[in-house]
């Protein structure tokens, strides 16, 4: 989930202002995170679910952004692939998101906090694996 779309973050440059909508930063962060191997997806709230149900791609799902004048703090709520080393993948996500946001916006990223909400288990393979019957 993201903060209000209405809020624009403004950097004052010598030739004028550069403003970023929160959603822009959240989208950059979400896309950067999604490219890290081992991440199954982002974990969103009820609104994110409804948006996706309506068929609209939601790149800000699972991303919460707090931005000051020159800096930003980003929270990511993620679902990991089973088999991936969670702590290593999360560290990669932190670096990837920080790099992407700083490069594309010029904002200084103070922190990228990652919250692992779930693990996606792939279906058991047909050869050899057994399932429990309750």
């Amino acid at each position: 989930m993201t903060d209000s779309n209405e809020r624009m973050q403004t950097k004052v440059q010598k030739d004028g202002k550069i403003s970023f909508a929160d959603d822009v930063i959240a989208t950059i962060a979400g896309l950067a995170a999604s490219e890290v191997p081992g991440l199954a997806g982002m974990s969103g709230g009820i609104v994110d679910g409804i948006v996706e149900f309506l068929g609209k791609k939601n790149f800000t799902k699972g991303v919460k952004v707090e931005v000051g004048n020159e800096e930003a703090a980003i929270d990511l709520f993620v679902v990991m692939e089973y088999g991936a080393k969670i702590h290593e993948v999360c560290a990669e996500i932190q670096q990837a998101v920080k790099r992407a946001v700083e490069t594309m916006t010029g904002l200084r990223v103070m922190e990228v906090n990652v919250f692992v909400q779930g693990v996606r288990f792939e279906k058991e393979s047909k050869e050899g694996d057994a399932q429990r019957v309750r």
Partner: protein
Amino acid sequence: MKIRITDRILLLLFVLAAMALAVVIPCIIFGAIPQSNFNNFMQTAYADGWMKALITAICAVVFLIGFRLLIAGLSRPRPKTALLASSAEGSIRISLVVLDELAQKFANTIQEIKEIKTDVFLLRDGVKFRVKYTIVQEASVPEISTKLQTGIKQFVEMYTGITVKSVEVMVEKTSSTPKKYITD
């Protein structure tokens, strides 16, 4: 999501009220409750102050219960998380539900375990698991318990990096029926 005991009681009362209404209305419509009785009741309700107050109070209680259940259903308490790492880049936290699922995932690979329940507890410097399981009769309890303890610890630590301080194991019961498998 676990439902609190008070919400369960409210849900029961609400469902009973809805069921009562679902029975009474068809009875009125199809004449099981004579129309004269219904008319008398309505006239009394309109005329008698005490009856108005009573009906209003009952309706208000039902409304409030429904509202409370609606709020309880919509609001999701944030699941507890454990800290995996904290650095200059930020912190990494993992939901205890995920740790629980990983422990279950490992335990399901042990053939001698028929059923298993796991709970995970947050400690200051790691986590603790409490495991209750049903074992098939022919299996060795000490061997399986040790396998569970070391296995869950290694499995969770490998995939999450979190420190598993202890795995408490309890054999709840034994089962004479062997574990069934579905193989494709």
